[in-house]
């Protein structure tokens, strides 16, 4: 049988545009072309816009790969990587690569992207001057960050700021030089630029605006950057992120029409009918794009034209988000203002929020959001649809929920439902609402399935809520609402919940037994599942559990907190934050005797002694024990501290004895291991000096009793507590607290704080178990107190008495020419 001769499509560029174009073509007609892709980088296709999270350490390279080697093989695509194309022969319809390879084509697609622009100041070619374009650049930056020192980033645009953020997180001193007076001036107005600058400066970066680089100074490597005003900034590396320019060399040499980019028509065709171009290297209707969204639209138009029939690309309206964690920033369209433009602005200085929507003839033409970007998609959609917004103008700045009449409580799913079908949901991968909905209707019924099928929310994840909203709207009752729960770790396919349930059902009592019974795929687990299993076992079998020190993180194994230099910090318990001269003297003596580097008052009202060597720990503990102090468990997934205010004993506002109650709570709950650290506070009145409303369990005393608050967190994600209930007596407060802790101990996943746990199971569930079910509450309390009879032993005293002594001693010591060994 003679194989039908297919047309041959050759793609120059294995980047986001080239591969996306191929994907779009394959989705329409997988049999149409024989495909060859040339890539200059020696690796598979990855999501270039996710390089910033890789630099910042939020992602690994594997996580940003779009198409792995299997994809090329499965689709019969030949990938020529690490070999760049150097010439196109349009007459002979053939191209030549650096290695000397020739390849003929029927259709050619140029997707060569862009090159970073390097300002030609003296010294720009010194070693240590890096651009930010591909993985090699990221690796260079990581290597530099490893050595530490100072980094200067030239360019305060999107890319420059993301590079600066990554290097800063990696421990470098960072200075950003920006020529213009406002950061990201093409995307931000002055007000938002100022908020951004202030925030970055508060984090510790130095931002110089209006900074014009004169030269890069250095002998054999960069040493400093000199500005035109004479300022010199020392630098171990210089990252040049001033912009990009389309890579048009091949097209130019081949005689194609080139303006700022390779000129294409609406079908992405160049002046040569068999040559096409997409991405950052093209100029379409006079515009060149440097963002990812237009690229998706170009690839669709190209694929339509190459397969089913031309639909045409009409240019893109673009929006921008900054990928710097903790900073929410959105910008779209034109906000330069003008005579016929009107501004609607909202500022909330306390919350650091700034929103500006620019209207022209009752239509949105631009939007800048800082601090709260939830409505970015909505404004962007209204802008692209050119909707008349005069009806909702008065409320438009308050966002979709409010403007649509629902007030702040409006159903968030309604917001997603109101978006048009071609509204973009996932900016990282260019997925529209319409394609997500059709994937769901085609059978992708879970978040993971949608991610697998469309890639929506599979990169930075910020649109996960929107995708889940679409699942809910599209499937209604059929959507379980719960994303597929992930396995504990790579060693097993069981989830945390499965493992806990099976430990009880099968009466598994030791880690090796769990791994055997549950078919662990690794011989002895990993550093993530072993501590989890150790906790689940000790929680399930308090009477019988045998500790496995090798499955404890170092801090819990050594009962102290490891510091970056390998020394430890030691926090003795001070019940309720109360201390006395004897304890203070003992602490002072320890600090002097063991030459501790620092003593610090902690946020939990304790004293933290820094710089103790592991060999000295038992002696330090012995001294502290002698003064009546025990371990403060500041190192553990355990009850940390009970913070109190002075209460009715001293304070003229105090309503109850908050100090006394705090001490009782701490006496009851110290020593208990938990899924994660657990903090308690008792405030004597609603002024709340003990900050009880950001603790895992907080009590706010009032005249008539005690308000019990749960699920607070003062960490990365600030969360105020929820009111569990109000009780009248101290005894009840203690009972509810014990029951709550036990419910958390028995049901939360290891390393879940109470805040995410409550958000997952819902406050109503916790109320039902603790407040409504009196019998269940008392059983939980009893189980907690039973477990405590085994756990309330001071680990320090045990070590002082000689337990696990090997952990604190060297095995032996080598002196040159002699070894002094253990017995």
């Amino acid at each position, binding site marked *: 049988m003679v194989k039908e001769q297919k047309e041959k499509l050759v793609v120059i560029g294995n980047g986001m545009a080239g591969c996306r174009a191929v994907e779009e073509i394959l989705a329409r007609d997988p049999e149409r072309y024989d495909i060859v892709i040339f890539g200059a980088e020696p690796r598979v296709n990855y999501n270039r816009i996710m390089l910033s999270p890789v630099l910042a350490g939020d992602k*690994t*390279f*594997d996580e940003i790969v779009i198409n792995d080697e299997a994809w090329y093989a499965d689709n019969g695509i030949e990938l020529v990587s690490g070999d760049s194309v150097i010439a196109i022969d349009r007459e002979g319809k053939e191209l030549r690569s650096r290695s000397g390879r020739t390849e003929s084509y029927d259709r050619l697609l140029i997707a060569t992207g862009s090159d970073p622009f390097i300002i030609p100041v003296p010294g720009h070619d010194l070693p240590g001057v890096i651009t930010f374009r591909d993985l090699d650049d990221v690796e260079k930056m990581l290597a530099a960050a*490893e050595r530490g020192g100072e980094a200067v980033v030239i360019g305060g645009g999107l890319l420059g700021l993301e590079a600066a953020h990554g290097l800063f997180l990696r421990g470098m001193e960072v200075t950003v030089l920006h020529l213009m007076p406002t950061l990201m001036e093409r995307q931000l107005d002055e007000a938002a630029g100022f908020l951004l600058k202030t925030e970055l400066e508060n984090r510790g970066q130095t931002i110089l605006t209006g900074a014009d680089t004169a030269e890069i100074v250095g002998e054999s490597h960069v040493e400093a950057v000199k500005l035109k005003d004479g300022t010199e900034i020392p630098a171990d590396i210089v990252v040049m992120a001033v912009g990009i320019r389309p890579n048009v060399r091949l097209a130019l040499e081949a005689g194609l029409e080139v303006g700022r980019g390779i000129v294409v028509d609406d079908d992405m065709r160049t002046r040569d009918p068999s040559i096409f171009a997409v991405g950052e290297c093209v100029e379409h209707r006079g515009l060149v794009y440097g963002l990812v969204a237009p690229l998706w639209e170009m690839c669709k138009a190209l694929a339509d034209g190459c397969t089913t029939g031309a639909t045409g690309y009409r240019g893109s309206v673009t929006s921008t988000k900054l990928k710097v964690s903790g900073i929410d920033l959105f910008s779209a369209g034109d906000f330069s203002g003008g005579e016929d433009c009107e501004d609607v602005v909202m500022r909330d200085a306390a919350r650091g929020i700034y929103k500006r929507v620019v209207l022209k003839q009752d239509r949105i033409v631009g939007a800048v959001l800082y601090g709260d970007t939830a409505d970015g998609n909505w404004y962007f959609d209204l802008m692209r649809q050119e909707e008349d917004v005069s009806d909702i103008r008065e409320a438009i700045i308050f966002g979709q929920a409010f403007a649509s009449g629902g007030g702040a409580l409006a159903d968030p799913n309604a917001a997603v439902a109101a978006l048009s079908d071609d509204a973009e949901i996932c900016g990282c991968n260019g997925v529209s609402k319409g394609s997500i909905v059709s994937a769901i209707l085609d059978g992708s019924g879970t978040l993971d399935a949608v991610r697998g099928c469309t890639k929506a929310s599979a990169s930075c994840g910020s649109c996960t809520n929107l995708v889940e909203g679409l699942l809910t709207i599209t499937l209604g009752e059929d959507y379980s609402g719960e994303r597929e729960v992930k396995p504990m770790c790579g060693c097993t396919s069981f989830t945390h919940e499965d493992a806990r349930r099976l430990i009880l059902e099968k009466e598994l009592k030791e880690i090796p037994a769990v791994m055997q019974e549950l078919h662990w795929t*690794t*011989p*002895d*687990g*990993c*550093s993530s599942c*072993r*501590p989890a299993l150790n906790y689940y076992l000790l929680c399930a079998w308090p009477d019988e559990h045998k500790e496995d*020190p*090798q*499955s404890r*993180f*170092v801090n819990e*194994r*050594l009962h102290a907190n*490891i510091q*970056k230099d*390998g020394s430890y910090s030691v926090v003795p318990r001070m019940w309720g934050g109360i201390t006395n001269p004897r304890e203070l003297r003992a602490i002072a003596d320890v600090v002097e005797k063991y030459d501790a580097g620092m003593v610090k008052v902690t946020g939990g009202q304790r004293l933290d002694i820094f710089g103790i060597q*592991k060999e000295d720990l038992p002696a330090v503990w012995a001294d502290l024990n002698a003064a009546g102090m025990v371990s403060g468990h500041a190192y553990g997934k355990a009850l940390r501290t009970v913070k109190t205010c002075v209460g009715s004993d001293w304070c003229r506002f105090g309503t109850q004895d908050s100090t006394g109650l705090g001490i009782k709570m701490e006496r009851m709950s110290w020593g208990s291991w938990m899924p994660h650290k657990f903090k308690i506070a008792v405030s004597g009145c609603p002024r709340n000096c003990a900050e009880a409303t950001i603790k895992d369990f907080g009590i706010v005393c009032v005249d008539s009793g005690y308000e019990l608050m749960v699920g607070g967190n003062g960490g990365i994600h600030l969360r105020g507590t929820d009111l569990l209930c109000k009780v009248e007596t101290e005894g009840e407060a203690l009972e509810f607290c014990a029951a709550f802790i036990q419910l958390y101990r028995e049901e939360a996943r290891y390393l879940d704080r109470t805040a995410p746990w409550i958000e997952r199971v819902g406050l109503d569930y916790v109320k039902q178990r603790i407040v409504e079910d009196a019998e269940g509450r008392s059983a939980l309390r009893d189980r907690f107190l039973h477990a405590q009879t085994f756990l309330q032993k001071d680990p320090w005293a045990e070590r002082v008495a000689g337990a696990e002594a*090997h952990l604190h*001693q*060297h*095995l*032996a*010591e*080598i*002196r*040159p020419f002699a*070894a002094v*060994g*253990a*017995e």
Partner: protein
Amino acid sequence: MDANWLDIGPVDQLPALGARTLPVQGGQEIALFRTANGKVFALHNKCPHKQGPLSQGIVHDTTVTCPLHNWRISLLTGEAQGEDKGCVPTIPVKVDGGRIFIARAEALAGAR
């Protein structure tokens, strides 16, 4: 006694899946590891990343996870695993008659 190997003590002083330290006067402190199946390995006690004490990490299979930032280091080669890049020197070590022996030259390398 072989002059090329130093006896540094009985192997039962090293817990399975655990580690202990071996300071070298004037040189690099060494960490000794024992895997679940009883094999013993020796590495410099310094993570290539930020010099974390590898001896305090969790040992699993033939890997130790650094206690500071969770880099995984191969006990066989000293190489960082996964995406991380870096390498810590390994020192030859053997168990004979229930005692641990470490290669003298490598253990003393750099010691003054």
